C-alpha cells in the first residue's frame, strides 16, 4: 500500500494515496458532467468557508470554481483563459482565479477533465476571508442569473471569535442559507442528516491533522506544502463529511505511518526524496502552472516543507477545532470564522512562529502571490516578525496562482538557492569553531 507507484522511468511517481485522491477528483468531475442527465442540482461555492456537509443535506453537487482554476492551472490551460477574460474587459490587476474561471466559461465551460461543467442552480457565496469572493459571484450571477446566497463571515479583526459573530452566522444559516437551499433543491432540511455528515468530517479531520503533524518527525515523511496540496484536496473540496473522505484519510495515515517506520522522507514526482537537508515552513499559496518544476526546485536541494499556511486555507484543524455534531450550526460558523485567511495578521504571525518552532524548521519562506491580496498584503511584515521572534532566516519569492506570465523559474530558483545558502551560513555561525577552547 505504501509503495510509490512508478509506471515508467520518466513518468511521475505517485503515492497510493495520491492515485486514490486523483480517482476521487475524476469521479467528482464525472458526476458534475453528468448532472444534466442525472438531474442533480449544483451549488457553486468557495473553498474557505465551504459548507459541504450542508450542501450534501440538500443532495446538491458541490462545484468549486477555485478548484477548477487550480486544475486548469496544473493542466496549463489557465493562461489562455486568463487572457480571454482580460480581452473581455477584466483588469490585468485582479485575481487570476476569477479570470481563469470567466475565461473557461467564455470558451464553453469545459472543465479541466475535458467534460462540460453544468450551470449552477445556486451560488452559495460564502464570503469568508477574501473580498474577491463577493465580486466573483456577482460576476457569475450576472452570467447565470441564478439564485445567490450571501453568507457573510465577519473577519477576526481582533483575533477572536465573539458570540456576536457566531450568532450572526448561525442566524444567516437558519434564516437565509437553509431556506434558500431547501427552495432551490426541493429537499427538506434534516438536522440529523447534517449531524451525521459532521461526525464523519471530524473523523477525517483527526486523520488529516495526524498526517500534517507527522512532519514533526525527522526526516519528515511528508511534504506539507506540495504533497500537502494533494492531502487537502478531498477535505477542502467536495468530500468533507463523506465516508469516501474518511476512508481516504485513514488510508493516507496508514501510508504515512509506514513511511515513518521505514525512516523514509516524502514521495516526490521523481520518487523518494533523498537526504533531508532543509526543513521549511511556507506561507502563501503555490504556483500551479509550473507546479512540478516549482516543487523540484525544493526537493533537488533536499528541502522539505514541514508546515504551511496554505494547507489551512480550507480549515484550521491543528489547534483543536473539529466539526461538532452536537452543535451543528455553531460548528459550521466556527469553522468559517477560523479559516486561515479570516485570521488577522498577529494571529498569522503567531501561527507561523509556532510552526517554525514546533516543526523544528530552518526558517520561513513566503511565496507571495501577485493576484491574492488576502494572503499577500502584509506578508513582508509577517516575514520580519517571524524572523525576529524565531531567530531563523526568512525569504521571499513572488509568483502567481494560475497565471503563467508571473512564474519566472530562473528568478525563483536563484532566490531559493540564496536562501539555502543563508540557512547554511546561519548553521555554520552556530557551530563551535574547530579547536575552540571550552
Amino acid at each position, binding site marked *: 500500500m505504501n509503495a510509490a507507484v512508478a509506471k515508467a522511468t520518466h513518468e511521475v511517481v505517485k503515492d497510493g494515496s495520491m492515485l486514490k485522491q486523483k480517482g476521487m477528483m475524476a469521479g467528482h468531475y464525472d458526476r458534475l458532467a453528468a448532472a444534466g442527465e442525472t438531474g442533480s442540482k449544483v451549488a457553486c461555492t468557495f473553498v474557505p468557508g465551504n459548507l459541504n456537509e450542508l450542501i450534501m443535506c440538500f443532495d446538491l453537487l458541490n462545484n468549486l470554481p477555485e478548484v477548477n482554476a487550480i486544475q486548469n492551472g496544473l493542466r496549463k490551460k489557465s493562461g489562455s483563459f486568463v487572457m480571454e477574460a482580460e480581452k*473581455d*474587459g*477584466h*483588469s490585468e*490587476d*485582479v*485575481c487570476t482565479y*476569477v479570470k481563469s474561471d470567466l475565461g473557461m466559461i467564455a470558451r464553453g465551460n469545459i472543465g479541466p477533465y475535458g467534460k462540460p461543467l453544468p450551470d449552477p442552480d445556486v451560488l452559495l*457565496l460564502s*464570503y469568508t476571508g*477574501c*473580498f*474577491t469572493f*463577493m*465580486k*466573483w459571484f*456577482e*460576476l457569475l*450571477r*450576472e452570467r447565470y*442569473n441564478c439564485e*445567490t446566497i*450571501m453568507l*457573510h463571515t*465577519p*473577519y477576526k*479583526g*481582533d483575533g477572536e471569535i*465573539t458570540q*456576536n*459573530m457566531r*450568532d*450572526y452566522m448561525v*442566524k*444567516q444559516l437558519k*434564516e*437565509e442559507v437553509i431556506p434558500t437551499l431547501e427552495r432551490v433543491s426541493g429537499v427538506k432540511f434534516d438536522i440529523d442528516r447534517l449531524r451525521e455528515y459532521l461526525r464523519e468530517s471530524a473523523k477525517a479531520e483527526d486523520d488529516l491533522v495526524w498526517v500534517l503533524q507527522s512532519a514533526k518527525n525527522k526526516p519528515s515523511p511528508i511534504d506539507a506544502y506540495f504533497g500537502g496540496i494533494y492531502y487537502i484536496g478531498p477535505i477542502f473540496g467536495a468530500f468533507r463529511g463523506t465516508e469516501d473522505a474518511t476512508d481516504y484519510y485513514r488510508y493516507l495515515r496508514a501510508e504515512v505511518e509506514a513511511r515513518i517506520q521505514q525512516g523514509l522522507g516524502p514521495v516526490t514526482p521523481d520518487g523518494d526524496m533523498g537526504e533531508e537537508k532543509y526543513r521549511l515552513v511556507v506561507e502563501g499559496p503555490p504556483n500551479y502552472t509550473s507546479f512540478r518544476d516549482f516543487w523540484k526546485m525544493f526537493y533537488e536541494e533536499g528541502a522539505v516543507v514541514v508546515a504551511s499556511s496554505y494547507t489551512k486555507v480550507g480549515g484550521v484543524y491543528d489547534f483543536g477545532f473539529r466539526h461538532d455534531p452536537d452543535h451543528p450550526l455553531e460548528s459550521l460558523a466556527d469553522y468559517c470564522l477560523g479559516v486561515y485567511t479570516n485570521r*488577522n*495578521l*498577529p*494571529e*498569522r*504571525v503567531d501561527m507561523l512562529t509556532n510552526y517554525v518552532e514546533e516543526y523544528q524548521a530552518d526558517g520561513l519562506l513566503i511565496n*507571495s502571490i*501577485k*493576484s491574492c*491580496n*488576502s494572503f*499577500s*498584503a*502584509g*506578508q*513582508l*511584515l509577517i516575514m520580519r*516578525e517571524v524572523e525576529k521572534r524565531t531567530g531563523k532566516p526568512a525569504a521571499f519569492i*513572488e509568483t502567481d496562482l494560475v497565471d503563467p506570465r508571473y512564474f519566472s523559474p530562473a528568478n525563483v530558483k536563484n532566490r531559493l538557492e540564496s536562501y539555502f545558502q543563508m540557512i547554511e551560513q546561519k548553521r555554520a555561525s552556530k557551530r563551535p569553531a574547530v579547536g575552540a577552547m571550552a
Partner: protein
Amino acid sequence: MTVSPTTEIIERCRALFDDLQFTAAREWKAAAPGRKVVGYMPIYVPREIIHAAGMLPLGVLGGGDQLEVIHGDAYYQSYICRIPRSTIELGVTGRLDFVDGMLFPSICDVIRNLSGMWKLMFPEVYSHYFDVPQNYRDDIGGNYYINELKLFRDDLERLAGRKITDDDLRASIDAYNENRRLVREVYAYRSDQPWKAPATEIYLLMRAGMVLPVEEHTQLLRDYLGAVETEDRPIRDNCRVVLIGMFCEQPPFNLIKSLELAGCYVVDDDLLLVTRWLIGDVPLEGDPIENLAKAFLHHSEDTSAKYEPDAAEKGKYLVRTVKRTGAEGVIFAAPSFCDPALLDRPMLQHVLKDADIPYIAFKYAENSGQMQPIREQAGTFADSIKLWSES
C-alpha cells in the same frame, strides 16, 4: 488686490490638504487637556460615535503625491496599491504620532490586513477593523451591526475615559445630519452649475472635512455656498461626467484638474464617500445606535465594496446618478490594483451599455505624475460626446 471670499475659503482648504503633519488636528488636540483623535480610513465609519466621545475623527487617506514614500515601500510588494504604503509612511515617520486610535473599515483585503499590521507596528495605539454587515435584514445583519456598534462604543468609552450617553450620540447625529445636508447641497449646486463650483474646489472643500471638527466644516460649507454664488464664472462648452472608482485611494489633485481642463464638468463622484454615506437625516428620536444601524442598512450609498443582494439592481445606482445629474457620460478612474473598483467595473459597464451611456476607463495611483495621457483620453471622450450629442 482683494481676494474673493471663495478664493479665501479654497486657499484655506488647500493649506489643510497640503499639510501632511495634520497641524489643524494637532492644534485641536492641544487646545484642551484630555482630547483624543481617532483616525479612520475610507470608506465609512460612524463618525458620530467618535464625536460623541468628545474626540476628533480624522480622515487618513494616504500620502497623496507630495509624500516621498521611503519606508512604506518596504512593507508592500509592487502589485499592491499605493494607499497602504503611504499610510504606513505617515505612521512610521511620526506624522500620526498624535493619533490615539485608528479604524480600518471593511473595504478590501489590503485595508483589512493593514488593521493587523497597525496592531503589530503601533501596539500602543487602539486599532480596530471596523466590520459592517453584508446582510441587510434588520433581524440578521441589523442585530449584528447594532452589537458591533455597541462594542465599538465600549472601546471608545475606554479610550476616552468617560461614558458616551445616548444624548451625546443624539447631539452628534444632529451635528452630522446638518453636515451631510450641506454636503448634499454643495453637490447639488455643483450639479446645477458646474461652471461655478469646479470639481477641484469641491474636492478641497470636502477634504477639509477630513481634518476639521464637523461644526467648523459645516460652517465652511455654508460660507462656500454663499461665496460662490457671487462669483462670475463663464460657462464653458464642457460635457457633464460622473466620476467613479475613486472611493478609497485618492487621485492626485492634478488629475481632477486635468479632467476639467480636458473639457469635463464633474457633476458627481464617489470621492470621500464618508461625507455623504448616509442618505437623509438619521432620526434623533429613539435609540441612536439602532438609528445609525438602520441608516446604514437601508439608507446608505452604493459602492463597489458593498454586496448588492438584488441582481436586477446591480449597478443601477450609477444609471440613476447619471440621470439625476444630467450627466452625459461616466469616467471610470480606479487606482491600480484596487480589487473592489476593478472587479466591479465590468458589471457597471454592462449596465451603462444597456442604458446607452458612454464611458471611458483608466487607472491611476495617488502619486501619478504624468497627466497628459489622461487629459488626452478625457478630452477625446468629451469631444466625442459633444459630437454625438450634436449629430
